[in-house]
C-alpha cells in the first residue's frame, strides 16, 4: 500500500510537464483546435521522439515497456496541458488492443510504426442511433464474408481523429444469427486501412474541438488477416479495452481539474474585492476546499484503476468508479472554478475555457455516468 509515485514516475511526470509547458502552450492548443487536422505533426513527432507513443510497448516494437500506471502519469499531464491530438486513439484504443490480441505479424506490422509516431490508429465503435449505454449491442455495421475477406458496410459515429488516422479498429457484425440471443455476440474487430477504397469521413464539430468523425463504409474490402482477436469474439476485445479507455479519459479529466484547482486558488489569492483577496472569504475557501477534495479523491480513484490495469487484475469496478467520479468531479470543480474566477473566466482568452471544454468532452466520451454506474451495480451483484 503506497499512494505516492515512484521516483521514475515523478521524473516522467516532471519531464512531461516541462516539455508540454514548453512545447504545448495555449497558443498552440488554440491554433491546433482551429486547424482542420486537430493535431500538430511536429509536436507529435517530438512526443514520439520522447518515447511516449511506445511507452507501454515492448522494446522489440520500439517501446519502453512501461506500465499502464506510467501511461496514466503521462495522460494526466496531457490533460493538464490540454494537449490536442490522437494520443488516446492511437495508444489506448490502437496499440494496446493489438498488443493484447494481435498476432505476431500484426504486432510487427503496426506497433513499430506507432512507436515511431508514424502510424495513427483510432477506434470505430459507436453507430448513429444506437443505445448509448450499449454501444456493442447497437452495432449494425456488417462485415459480410467475401472471397478471402470481408466486405464492410454501414456508418460509424464519434470516431476520433478518423480524418488523420492511418488505421481504424472497427467493430462489425459477422454473425447475425448469434446476435439474436445476445447482441454482444457475433461481433468481430477489424483493422481497416483508411487508404482502402470505400471509406469516407466527415469531421463533426464538438465542444472540445476534438475531431470526432462520421465514417461511412461503402463496400469496403478487408482481408481476413485484418481481424484482430478471434472471429465473432469482438466482445472480449471490447471488454478489455473499455476500462482502459475510460481510465485514460479519467486521467485527462484529472489533469484538467487539478489545473483548474491550481489556477483558481492562485486567482483567489491575488484577486482583490472589498479590499481583500477573495480567497479570504469563507465561502470561497470552502469552494476551494471542496475542489481540492474532489481532485484528491479522483486522483486516487484513477491511479487505483490504472494500477490494477498495470497489474493485469480485474478492474471493471475500479475503472467504472474512476470514470463516474471523473465526470461528477469535473462538473463540480468546473462550476466552482468559474464561480470563483468570475466574469474573466468566461472569456475566450482565459485559459479556464480550455479545461471546461476538454473536461466536458471527456466526460461524454467512453461511456456516460449512468452507464458506468450500471457497471458498478453489476459488479455489486445487483
Amino acid at each position, binding site marked *: 500500500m503506497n499512494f505516492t509515485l515512484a521516483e521514475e514516475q515523478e521524473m516522467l511526470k516532471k519531464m512531461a510537464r516541462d516539455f508540454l509547458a514548453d512545447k504545448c502552450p495555449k497558443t498552440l492548443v488554440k491554433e491546433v483546435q482551429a486547424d482542420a487536422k486537430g493535431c500538430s505533426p511536429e509536436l507529435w513527432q517530438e512526443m514520439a521522439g520522447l518515447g511516449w507513443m511506445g511507452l507501454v510497448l515492448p522494446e522489440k516494437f520500439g517501446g519502453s515497456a512501461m506500465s499502464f500506471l506510467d501511461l496514466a502519469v503521462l495522460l494526466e499531464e496531457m490533460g493538464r496541458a490540454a494537449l490536442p491530438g490522437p494520443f488516446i486513439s492511437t495508444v489506448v484504443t490502437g496499440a494496446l488492443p493489438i498488443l493484447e490480441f494481435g498476432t505476431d505479424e500484426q504486432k510487427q506490422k503496426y506497433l513499430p510504426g506507432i512507436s515511431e509516431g508514424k502510424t495513427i490508429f483510432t477506434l470505430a465503435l*459507436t453507430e*448513429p*442511433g*444506437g*443505445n*448509448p449505454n*450499449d454501444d456493442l*449491442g*447497437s452495432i449494425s455495421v456488417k462485415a459480410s464474408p467475401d472471397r478471402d475477406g470481408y466486405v464492410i458496410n454501414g456508418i460509424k*459515429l*464519434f470516431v476520433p481523429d478518423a480524418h488523420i488516422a492511418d488505421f481504424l479498429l472497427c467493430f462489425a457484425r459477422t454473425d447475425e444469427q448469434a446476435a439474436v440471443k445476445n447482441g454482444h455476440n457475433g461481433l468481430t474487430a477489424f483493422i481497416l486501412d483508411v487508404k482502402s477504397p470505400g471509406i469516407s469521413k*466527415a469531421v*463533426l*464539430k*464538438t*465542444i*472540445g474541438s*476534438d475531431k*470526432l468523425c*462520421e465514417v461511412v463504409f461503402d463496400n469496403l474490402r478487408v482481408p481476413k488477416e485484418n481481424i484482430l482477436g478471434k472471429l465473432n469474439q469482438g466482445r472480449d476485445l471490447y471488454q478489455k479495452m473499455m476500462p482502459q479507455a475510460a481510465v485514460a479519459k479519467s486521467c485527462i479529466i484529472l489533469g484538467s481539474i487539478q489545473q483548474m484547482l491550481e489556477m483558481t486558488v492562485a486567482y483567489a489569492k491575488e484577486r*482583490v*474585492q*472589498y479590499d481583500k483577496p477573495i480567497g479570504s*472569504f469563507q*465561502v*470561497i475557501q470552502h469552494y476551494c476546499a471542496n475542489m481540492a477534495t474532489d481532485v484528491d479523491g479522483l486522483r486516487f480513484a484513477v491511479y487505483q484503476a490504472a494500477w490494477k490495469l498495470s497489474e493485469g487484475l480485474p478492474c471493471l469496478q475500479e475503472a467504472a468508479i474512476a470514470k463516474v467520479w471523473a465526470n461528477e468531479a469535473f*462538473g463540480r470543480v468546473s*462550476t466552482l472554478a*468559474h*464561480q470563483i474566477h*468570475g*466574469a474573466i*473566466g*468566461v*472569456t*475566450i*482568452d482565459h485559459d479556464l*475555457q480550455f479545461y*471546461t*471544454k476538454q473536461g*466536458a*468532452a471527456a466526460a*461524454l*466520451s467512453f461511456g*456516460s*455516468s*449512468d452507464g458506468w454506474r450500471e457497471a458498478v451495480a453489476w459488479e455489486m451483484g445487483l
Partner: protein
Amino acid sequence: MDFKFTEEQEKFRKEVRDFLEAEIKAGTFQPSCDAWIQGYSPEFTKKVSKKGWIGLTWPKEYGGQGRSHIDRLILTEEMLRYGAPAACHWFADRQIGGGILRYGSEEQKRTILPKIMAGEAYVGLGLSEPEAGSDLASLRTKATESGDYYIIDGQKMWTSCGVFMNHIYMVARTDPNLATPKHRGISEFIFETSLPGITITPTIDITGSTAWAEVFFDGVKIPKTAMIGEKNRGFYQVVNQLDYERAGLERLMGNYPLFDAIIKFVKETKWGNNYISKDPLVRQKLAQLRTEFEIGRLLTYRVVMVMEEGKAPNVEAAMAKQYSTGFEQHLASLSMEILGEYGQLMAESKYAPILGMAPHSFLGSKGYSLQAGSTEVLRGVIATRGLGLPA
C-alpha cells in the same frame, strides 16, 4: 392567494404568442437561447415598439402604457419562451427607463423615454470594470467636471448590449475625495456612444459570441445634463436598479428554448429500439428539471407581485435570481448528459441534436450565476437583508 391570470391577461398572453408565432413563421427570427441578451434585431425591436410593448408599465404621461407589472411578466415570459431577439430594447425597458422615471429630470424623461419606446435607443449597461466586479463600488472610471461638461476617462467591461448599443448608461466616480466609504462619490450618466473618445471592443466569450464589450473612455466630453439623479449619490441609485436587473424571468428562462427542445427530442427520438423518453433515468431527470423550473417560476412571479405592490424587489429578486440561474445551469448540464456523446456536437455539426443548444448553453450558462449579482453576493443579501443576520 390566486394562481391564475385574469381573462384580459390571458388574452394579452395570447396576443403576444400570436405575434411571436407569426414572426417566427415570417422568418424574422428562430427561437434561440440567450436571445434577450444577445439577439440583435432592430427590425424585431421596431415591431415590438409598434405594439407598444416597450415601456409597457411606464406612465401614460410619458408615452408609456401604464400597465401592470403582471402584464410585463406575461410579455417577457412569452418573449423568453420563444427565444425572441429582444436585446436591443431589453435593458432600457427593464431598468433604464425605470431609473430615469425614478431619478431623472423632467427633461430626461421627455427626451430619452420616447427614444427607448420607439425602439431607437439601444442602451448598454456600463457597470463592471476590471477591478470592480462584485465590488462595484471599487470602480475607477472618473467623470471630471469642466464647465458645463463632464470628462469621462476610464474603462468598462462586460457592457451588456455593448456591441450594438447607441446609448450607454454608466456609473463613474465624480468626487475622488469622497472615496471613504468608497461607494460615495459615484454618479450615474446616460449618453450616446457616438461621442468622440469612446472605443468599443467586443469581448469574445467562452461560447464564441460577442454580445458584451469593453468600452474605453478617453476624455469623453458629455454635457452635465447627461447625469441621472443626484451627484455623488449614484451608487445608491444603481443598487436599486440592480434589483430590477435581477428581478425578471430572463434569469430563469434564458435557455428555455433548450428545455422545450430536449423534451421534444426525447419524445420523438429512438435510440436502439426505444424512445429515449421511456428510459426511467431520463424521465427522472426531466421531471426533476420540470420541478425545479416550476419553483423558479413561482419565486420569480413573487418578485413581480412585490413590484406590483409598488415595492422595490430586493431580497425577493436576490432569492429568485440565485435560485433560477442554478436551474438554468442544471438544465444545460443534464441536457448534455441526456444526449450522451451527442451532447458534444455543436450547432454547425452534422448529427447535432436540437441545434447544438445543449453544449452551447452548458458553456454560456457559466456566466448566468455571475452576471447582475453573483450567487454569493445574492445569498449575502438574503441572509443580511432578508433574515437579519449580522452583516
